[in-house]
């Protein structure tokens, strides 16, 4: 009787641990394939960046986060337009 009890406990623990990571990735699952691809590409580039460039980008991110919402929307819009233009060229 002891072995099935221990097995059940072990299985429960395993499910608990895997459920944690499954729930953790919920944000990721909500992204579109295009967004996922972009994030992966950017992450790979980020990994190769020297520390000072990383620091700079982190600063930029914090600065961007501190901007008012309408300003952020405007920047995003300008960026999208630029990208579209570059893509068309």
């Amino acid at each position, binding site marked *: 009787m002891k072995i099935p009890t221990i097995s059940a406990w072990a299985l429960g623990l395993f499910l608990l641990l895997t459920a944690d990571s499954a729930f953790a990735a919920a944000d990721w699952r909500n992204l579109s394939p295009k967004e996922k691809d972009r994030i992966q590409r950017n992450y790979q580039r980020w990994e190769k960046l*020297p520390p000072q460039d990383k620091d700079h980008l982190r600063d930029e991110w914090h600065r961007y986060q501190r901007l008012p919402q309408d300003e952020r929307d405007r920047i995003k819009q300008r960026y999208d337009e630029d990208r579209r233009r570059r893509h068309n060229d």
Partner: protein
Amino acid sequence: MKKPAALKSACKDFEEDLVLHYYGEGGAAERERVERHVSGCACCRRFVDDLQRLLPRMTESRELPQTFWDNYLRETVAKLAEQEEKKFCWRSLLAPMQSWWLPAFGTVAIALLAFGLVLGKGKLTLFADHSVASLPQEVLADGEQLEFFKSLDMLESLDRLDGREGGRVKPKSNQTSLPKIEWAAA
């Protein structure tokens, strides 16, 4: 079996007294009063007769033969066994597996799984989203980090987009591997 005749009704005022009289209850005066009424009332006399006929039958116990009790016990045990079998019928499917090797197999499977997880350092991709292979868990779990990496291209040109070009200091590194980065002039 012949159905016993129903109890005849007596005078409403005497019904209860007649039953008590039958059981010998009540004082002498009360008994005399009831007897006097019964001698002059045909309904109540019939009621008393019926009581004398029916009540002893209600208390008599029927002796059952030993074979009845033997069968009763056997049938009860059989019914309980049948009920028990119905409740755990799924176990019969596993009957061949109920030897020592079922728990042993479970233990080995769990041990293998645990080893796999430890040696694979959590990179078990059986049920995993294969597109996340190159991203660490801390990034996947953090919505802000995902947003950061999604916006990385934009952050690289934030100065220009923000209209602050020329106002910010370029990082010291000259060997950036980002060809698309448009750092502001120092």
